[in-house]
């Protein structure tokens, strides 16, 4: 990693100013604020989840969960104050998670009936028809 071995000529500068001047008091207020935000979003997940909102239930739950995770990563895990290299690592892992999920779900969503597991509802049997499943191959 080039980040861990910079050229000798580069000045050694503090990436985290708090490391160097330790006497500077560090505030706990952001943690408390994030904690109450997380509590609020947990209640929101609970209330929206109990409504069983159909098609919108999953997107709502995922948006809330992603917001909560972003708060944990940025504030609790100090990603907000981190250097570019650590952000790059975290961002890269998210890109690969997105690739994995997208192509796998795209595969499953475009399958024809014989390629779905035994007993799985298909086409019109599904209570929440997904657009992609509508084209059933001619027998």
């Amino acid at each position, binding site marked *: 990693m080039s980040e*861990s071995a910079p050229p000798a000529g580069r000045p050694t500068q503090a990436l985290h100013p708090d490391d160097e001047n*330790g006497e500077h008091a560090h505030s706990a207020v952001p*943690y408390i604020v994030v*904690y109450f935000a997380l509590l609020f979003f947990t209640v929101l997940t609970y209330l929206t*989840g109990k409504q069983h909102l159909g098609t919108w239930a999953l997107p709502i739950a995922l948006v809330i969960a992603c917001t*909560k995770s972003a708060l944990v990563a940025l504030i*609790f895990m100090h990603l907000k104050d981190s250097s570019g290299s650590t952000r790059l690592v975290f961002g890269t892992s998210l890109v690969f998670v997105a690739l994995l999920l997208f192509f796998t779900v795209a595969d499953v969503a475009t399958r024809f009936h014989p390629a779905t597991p035994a007993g*799985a*509802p298909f086409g019109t049997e599904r209570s929440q028809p997904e657009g992609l499943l509508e084209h059933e191959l001619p027998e």
Partner: protein
Amino acid sequence: MSHEAEAGLPPGILAHHFSSLSRQNEAMRLGMWLFLATEILLFAGLFTGYAVYRFQFPEAFAECSRHLELTLGTVNTLVLITSSLTVALAIHYARNNRRHAAAVCLVITILFAFAFLGIKAVEYTAHFHERSLPGKYYAFEEVKIPGAAMFFSLYFLMTGLHGLHVIAGMVVLGFILRHTLQNRYSSRYYTGLELGGMYWHLVDMVWIFLYPLLYLI
């Protein structure tokens, strides 16, 4: 170890191959994030399997989800979120040279971890009694539709792997508690404590996704 003394640090913190503490801290953080990236990808595999089978069996997943103990799942979410706060506060107190407050926060976090595992054990016991178990062991009377056994296979895999991470996190918290009591962390150096705390936050983050996906379909 002379360059540690020059930096005003206790021995055993700054490795000889780092020219300064800030460089070592940066390398430690980068290494921890690389490790956490592999953990994220490990759980992503299970989440992908979950996505595939939830897509195939939407009704079975919704039906099984409604037979989980929503109250216990919600309480466990609150337990983990609060324990994340206490870890963050432990690092905060260590940075402000309040070693005892940091140690108390870590002890509270470990107690929350025990509470989480205890609640999970209550849930698992209920699953064993009603035989809502993975794969061929599935014999749950109340849901008898295709895909129900797969929901509980994924439920046990995901919460089981998460539970193992909770146990690993408790070991990590134990080590950083010991180091805190040994006066290793201060405003000058707290990176070890910070990285141990990050592992615990990851455990919390995974649960943030597991909770709505398993309990609230």
